[in-house]
Structures are given as C-alpha cells and as structure tokens.
C-alpha cells in the first residue's frame, strides 16, 4: 500500500517536477555558468572570466546603490503594505454583509497591469496633472513627485502597496476569521479596551497569516521592477534603481549577459539571506506569543 501510495505521489508531482526542471532548474544552472563568462549571447567568442563579474559587481557603485535602494523600498513598502492590508481586512471583517463583494473590489488592483497603472500615475503626478495643478492653485506649492529621490521612492512604494494590499487582506482576513469570538468576549468581560484587544489578542493570534504576508511583502520588495521602469527609469540619480533594474539594464540594454547573471546570483543570495534574517525575527516574535 505504501509503495502504491509512493508511486501515486510521484505520478502526481511529476508534471510539476518536470516543469520546474525545464523552466527553473536548468536555466538556473545555465545562468550560474554564464555568470563566470563574459559572453553576451551573440558573440562566437566565450571567455571564462572566473570571479571577474562578481568582483566587478561588488565594486560597482550602481550595485551598491541598488543594494541600499532595495532596503529603502523594504523599509517603506513592507510596513505600508501590511498596515493598508490590515486596515482593509479589519474593515471588511467588521461588515455585516457583502464582505465578498468588498474583498473582490479591494483585490482588483492586484489584477491590474503595472504598466497601465504606472502611466496613469505618471500623468496624475505630472507638473500639469490634476494634483500639482491643485497644489499650485491652492497652496502655491509645486512638488516634483517623481523627480525628487524621497518622494519618488514613496510614490513607487505606495503604488505597489496599493496594488498588493487587497491580496494581502485576503490572507489576513482568513486569520481574523479564525479567531474565536469567545476570546474577544472574555477580554471584554475583563475590561480590555479595543486598542488592547487589537494589539494583545488580534495581532498575536493572526501570527500565521501575518507571517505569510510579511514574507510575501519582503519578497516583493526585492523584486520591484515594473513601476520603477515605467515611472522613474531608476532615477532621479539612481534613487530608485533596484537590483532588478540593474539586471535588466546590464542584460538587455548593455548586452552584458554574463555580468547580469552574476548580479542576479548576488541579488538572490542577498534576498535569501535577508528573508532568512527577517523570518527568524518574525518567528521570535511569534514564539513570544506561544507560536511554534
């Protein structure tokens, strides 16, 4: 019976394993090989440069900038996304009816095209767009939203948070609904305030869903590309130039595929290490509240 179950298990997982092997594992191995060459995919000459690409990447100011910019995005985007999605989850959870409809409405931005929303935002925030026109007429203030390093970073982070918060809210709502009402009743009978209930009961009991959302959000912040590409091109002065932008520029604009592969590997290592550290921190927090 066990052998039969094993065979069935393998049979069911085989398509995914084959798919992963062809479209992820083999390209990954090829990319690792490419990172040790200076090949641009079109020249007949391929030279092994050893660790040259990695050393160049580690010395490159653009890579240093991308490293710090990515962490800046993480520090802005993750809290923003989690707060927004929590607000949506709590609000929808408290609705007496039509919860599903509201959830779908909040989920729609997740389905939208990053390119289209970027173009709309670009027009909205432009010098002669509605926002700046109103600010100039009302307060005689002009803000170059996408031309200033801090505002550009915030705009991109907010855009992605808006896009993702509906999706994250779906996950958080499942956490909210798993909390037994009797716990709230007991807390209220003990005289706990709403704020205390939220921070001492709701949030800790949402640990599994919060954990998922946090890790997903951290992963997104390491993969930001579309909005930066469309809105700022990595500017102003590389203030929004992420790892992905740098990989794209090196691979597809400068045709330095080997170098781009090296950057991609470095980015993967940094991403993996960062997510591991953040995961440990979240688990420590969860442990504090009795989660294993």
């Amino acid at each position, binding site marked *: 019976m066990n052998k039969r179950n094993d065979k069935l298990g393998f049979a069911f997982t085989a398509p995914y394993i084959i798919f992963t092997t*062809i479209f992820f594992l083999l390209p990954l191995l090829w990319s690792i090989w490419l990172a040790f060459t200076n090949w641009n995919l079109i020249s007949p000459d391929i030279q092994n440069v050893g660790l040259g690409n990695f050393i160049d990447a580690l010395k490159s100011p653009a890579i240093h900038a991308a490293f710090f910019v990515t962490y800046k995005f993480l520090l802005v985007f993750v809290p923003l996304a989690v707060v927004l999605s929590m607000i949506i989850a709590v609000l929808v959870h408290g609705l007496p009816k039509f919860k599903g409809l509201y959830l779908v409405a909040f989920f729609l931005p997740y389905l939208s095209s990053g390119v289209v929303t970027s173009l709309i935002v670009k027009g909205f*925030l432009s010098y002669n767009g509605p926002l700046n026109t109103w600010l100039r007429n009302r307060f005689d203030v002009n803000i170059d939203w996408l031309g200033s390093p801090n505002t550009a970073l915030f705009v991109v982070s907010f855009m992605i948070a808006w896009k993702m918060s509906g999706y994250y809210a779906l996950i958080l709502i499942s956490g909210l609904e798993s909390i037994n009402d009797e716990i709230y009743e007991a807390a209220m009978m003990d005289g706990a305030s709403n704020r205390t209930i939220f921070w001492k009961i709701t949030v800790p009991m949402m640990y599994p869903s919060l954990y998922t959302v946090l890790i997903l959000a951290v992963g997104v912040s390491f993969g930001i590309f579309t909005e930066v590409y469309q809105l700022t091109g990595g*500017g102003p002065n590389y203030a929004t130039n992420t790892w992905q932008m740098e990989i794209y520029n090196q691979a597809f604009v400068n045709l330095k595929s080997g170098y781009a592969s090296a950057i991609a590997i470095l980015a993967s290592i940094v991403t993996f290490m960062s997510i591991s550290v953040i995961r440990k921190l979240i688990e420590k927090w969860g442990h504090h509240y009795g989660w294993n």
Partner: protein
Amino acid sequence: MFAKKALVGLSLLVAAGTLAACGGSSDKSGTANGKTEITFWAAPNPTQVKYWKQMASDFEKANKDITVKVTQMKESPSSEATIQSAIASGTAPTMSENITRSFAAQLAQSKAIVSLNKDAETKSALTSIVDSRDMAKTIDGWKFSDGGQYVVPLYSNPMLFGWRLDMLKDLGIKSVPKTYSDVMNVAKALKAKNSKSVVWALPTGADPTAWQRWFDFFPLYDAASDGQAFVTGKKLVADSKAGKEVFDFVQELHQSGNLLTSKATDPFETKLAVMNIIGSWTFPNWKEKYPDLEYGKNYTLTAPVVPDSMKDAKNVKTYADAKGIVVYAKATTAQKKAAMKFMQFVFKDAKNDLSFLKTTSLLPARDDAATNKEFTSYFEANPYMKPYAENVPNAIPAMDNADYNDIQEKLGKDGWIPALKGEKSPAKAWSDMIASIKGSL
C-alpha cells in the same frame, strides 16, 4: 527509492529531449524548392511592416527565384533584446531594419553582422545602393571607426527645435531664437510677464536612462560642436569647449526657473513651454490630439540653438534619430546576395522612398530628401516635414561604440544631470564626466 531515482531520471530525460526539440532548425543553404529564401524583420511598427510586405511582394514578382518573408520583430523586452535572443538561439533573420548605429556597434563587435563594404558578396551592391539612392553624404556619418559600413541607413529623423510662435508674439519677441542669449531673452520676457510658462519643459532631463541623452544633450552638443563626434571607436574625442557651453546654457536656463524637469504631459502643446525638441513622429499624434497646431502659424521648427559665437552658422548640426538595415553574419552566400538585391530593388526608385515616407512619416535617409521632385507634392501637403528633410544631411547618428549605454549613462549621471541641476559647475561636471567615461573605454 527506485521510484525516486526513476522519476529524477525521467525528468532529466524529458528536459533534455524538450530542449533538443526546441533547438533551431535552420536550413543552412537558405534555399527551398530551388528558391533562395530570405527573412526580413521589420520594426515593431505596423506602418513599417505594411511597407516592407508591399516591397517584398513587388520584389518577388520581379525576382521569381527569391522569396522574402517579412515579419514584425518582437519587443520583448526590447527589439534589441529580441535580436540578441534570436542570434543566441540561431533563429536570427537574414536581415532586419530598426538598427541604430550604436546597436550595430554592439553587433559588429560580436561579429554578428556583415561589414557591407568589405564583404565580397555585398560591397558592390552597397556602392550601387548609395549611388542610386543619393546617400553618399548621409552614409558617410554611419561609417565605423574600423572603416566598416555595417548599416544601410533607412531613415533619418533630425531632431529639431519647435517654437510656439503665438507665445513668442505675446512676449513681444519678433524673431525665432537662434542662440543661447536669444533663449535667455525669452526667459527674461517670461519673467517680466510673470508667466507660469517656461522656456523649455524637459521631463526626461533628469532621467539617467542612457538613450534619453539622444533627445536632450546630443542635439545641443552636435550643434555647438559642428558635428564633432563624442566617441569614435574606443577614443573620447568630444569637443570640450562646445560641451561646457552646452552645460553652461542648460544650467543657466534651469537656474532662471525656465527649464522644467518635472514630469509634464504635452508641455509644448499645452503652452506650458515655449520650446521643445520635436521628432517627426510627433505629427500623426498632433493631428488627432491637437489639430489646432499649424506649422508656420502657431509653431515653427528650427535647427538646435547654438552658442552666441555661432550666431551666423549655416547648416547647424543636430542629432539624427536614425535607423537602418543590417545583414546578419549567419546568412549564406546566396542569402547575402539576395538580401542586397532586395535592397537594390527597394532603393533604386525614389517612388519607394516616397511610399515609405507616406506610410510611416519617417524621412528616408537620402541627401536629396528635401529637393527630390518625387517628394515635392508630399511636402506641399505636409509642410512641417520639409525642415526635417532639409536637415537630413546635417543630422549626426548615434556613436559607434558597443558600450554606448554605459557611456551615455555616465554622461547623464556625472555630467549632464549635475550640470543641469546646478549640483556642479559646468566645467567640473564636464571633467568628472570625461574621467568617468574614460574608465569605460
């Protein structure tokens, strides 16, 4: 345990088999059924695809032994990346258009394209094309530092400066500005009137993306330096005096509050800006969105503005947004000959260039673009295109260096942007930029 090993083995087998099946299977001889087959990738622009399909059809009728398959090249994520992938996978076409001089430098460095004036199969045909299409002067600007001619220029869009005549009239300015001082006079007039408009709205001015420099720095630099190259091969040969004058001009304009670098939608069209750099591809969009814009009535077009010392200069140079056709190295002898024969057919008759112009609104890269009788009726119907045609011989294409992206990024990041924003003096910005670029060469 055995099942696990078997599954892993099966996965690898299937993967290997799939990859082998995905391999390109090109016909090495380039012939099929006794006919030579060539593939032509047209630009990702429906009008250009339409034009080339018509040309291919006409050519095949006159040359029954050659088949020309025209397809549109993909832009995933860019046409250059598509070509890169195609060459890597052995599925590159025989020839394609949409190649800038800089991208051709990358391809030439990788030996992916044919040097048309050196290859035995192509050189005499190239000479014939240059003669019949009257493009000796135009193609001269496309020669590479190794003496190779890798691209047959197809179109050349000189970048011109557009001026709002209506706004200049309101400001009491009677003649269209030509020099930097003239432009600063417009700035002073705007300030005197407390106008909310600016001289120049350049939303991409602070964008570090390499190709943006083609549409802000290079038109000014080519004018100020009288067409002196920026980089030739591996040498930085830029005219420092001209470059610093350009930096000085944009810094002064920005500091006067008249060079706007915030993102703005259609600033020239909406009278937010008096001046803008205009490409000829703009007009079809204006016909739909801004039909009130009329050449000679509320706007005009000129060569780029120049330093005051060049106020009497004639034939002011500018940057050419120009692309051409290449033949890929993987083409067989028969295919190279057929490709050149196709180009000879297309370019021998000015009527085909007129058809190209009418279909695409892109100016054919020929020295007589403004004077050839075939185009007279077109320019009468579209007078705003005549200044572009007149400036084709004055238009300088992109540099021939495979690292042009890196170079232009450094030009932007270390020179143009800090100078424009006043973060560095023009001289410091220029010297920092030179030092940075030299590191790439």
